[in-house]
């Protein structure tokens, strides 16, 4: 994950109309889309809602000027683990259906049900579209901008300060992580090498991680001391400059929110389906 951090930051520093949007606008749109998708009941209507939302995401992605490969690479890093759990749904019954039709019987009494396959698809659509909006948000918004956006939207001061400091030092520890990994490689240490005893491998990894913990703690102490030198104290807070959202941004935000709210309602009321 930490290797991904550097790529995300590189992408976030590119320039495009979506990159230039105020972080608050992007946060609200991404969260609203995710909440709307999750709020849609587990029913086939999600296929239509999901498809329309994904087209909306794809349109925004086109304006970022980023390659679809970047999106695909990031999505593929996230989807497999929970993709397995989604896949297993096809063998399981759940509380959202009352009757189950067997479409295939396998050895050991394992069955694949039509309703379970449908449920797996519903989960997959919701999951993939939600992930897409998070990828869009993080690849087009610099971390400090996202934090300032959060602070302007009412994130508690202590949290804004702590998150700000954490984000700043993520990269320091990212580099430290790289260096430590390179050091282990230089010493020909491979945690997955079966020729080495398991106990030895775990001990080496534990000591490496312990070293990193101590270095992060000591870094924290140095930061704390230097902040005290600059007058940090109980009354300190993260200063965030006032920044009004521009009219075009308001317009874009309003239209997007109206779209995000309207689509599930229209699909639900009209029983509208594009499939």
């Amino acid at each position, binding site marked *: 994950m930490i290797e991904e951090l550097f790529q995300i930051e590189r992408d976030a520093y590119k320039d495009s109309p979506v990159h230039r949007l105020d972080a608050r606008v992007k946060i609200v749109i991404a969260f609203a889309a995710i909440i709307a998708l999750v709020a849609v009941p587990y029913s086939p209507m999600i296929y239509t809602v999901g498809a329309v939302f994904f087209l909306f995401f794809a349109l925004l992605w086109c304006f970022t000027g980023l390659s679809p490969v970047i999106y695909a690479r990031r999505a593929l890093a996230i989807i497999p683990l929970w993709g397995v759990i989604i896949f297993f749904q096809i063998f399981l019954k759940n509380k959202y259906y009352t009757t189950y039709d067997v479409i295939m019987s396998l050895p050991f009494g394992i069955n694949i049900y039509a309703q379970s396959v449908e449920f797996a698809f519903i989960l997959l659509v919701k999951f993939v579209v939600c992930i897409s909006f998070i990828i869009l948000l993080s690849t087009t918004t610099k971390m400090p901008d996202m934090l300032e956006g959060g602070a302007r939207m009412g994130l508690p001061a202590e949290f804004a300060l702590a998150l700000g400091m954490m984000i700043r030092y993520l990269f320091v520890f990212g580099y430290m992580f790289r260096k430590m990994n390179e050091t282990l490689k230089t010493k020909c240490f491979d945690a997955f090498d079966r020729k080495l005893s398991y106990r030895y491998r775990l001990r080496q990894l534990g000591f490496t*991680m312990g070293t990193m913990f101590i270095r*992060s703690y000591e870094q924290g102490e140095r*930061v704390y001391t230097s902040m005290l030198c600059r007058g940090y104290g109980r009354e300190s807070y993260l200063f965030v400059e006032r920044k009004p959202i521009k009219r075009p941004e308001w317009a874009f935000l309003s239209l997007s929110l109206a779209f995000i709210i309207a689509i599930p309602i229209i699909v639900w009321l009209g029983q509208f389906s594009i499939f």
Partner: protein
Amino acid sequence: MHIPDAFIPIWQGAIYWIIALVFVALALRWARNEMSEEKLPLVAVLAAGIFALQSFNLPVSMGTSGHLVGGALAAIILGSPFAAIFILTLVLIVQAILFGDGGITVLGANIINMGVIGGFVGFYTFRGLMGVTKSMPVSVFFAAWLACLIPALACAVEMYVAGTFPLIEGLVAMGIYHAIIGIIEGFVTVAVIYLITTARPDLVDTGVKAPAGA
């Protein structure tokens, strides 16, 4: 263990959010009262360190790997389960918003599992076992093992309540996998705490003494 969006209905996610916010507020109060507000930067930087620690791949078996959760580690070193809640809340927010690892609507559930349950189970198991066995490695190992296993079981129960995974299958699958990962987490946490109590005994706030001869 990072539940993503869509696996828990929105209303259940909202309930988990409310419960998590109560604990996050308590963790903030702990940070103000017990650590003094001025030490917040230290904890924040430590959170970045824990995030990096989670990136180390630990060999499990048959070429598979896992990673440290770190809830028990943070709680034991900083001497409070609220430290784990505070630090893991920061880590989980960053993981959810930047990496899509864990969802937004289910962030409350993830904070409850890894921060609240992991922190409390890890801390009080460690305290309890230290009182009985007087052995730091044994106490830390079981604390870290349980702090990995119990949140995974809680995750299985939440998904059962959500209707997205059956209870028995979920408990068995999550239980077995995290019981194995928990052993690795236990060993690595013992090694990390051994190193810290040896190199910087002043950092540890739990009565754990540096090993004899160190």
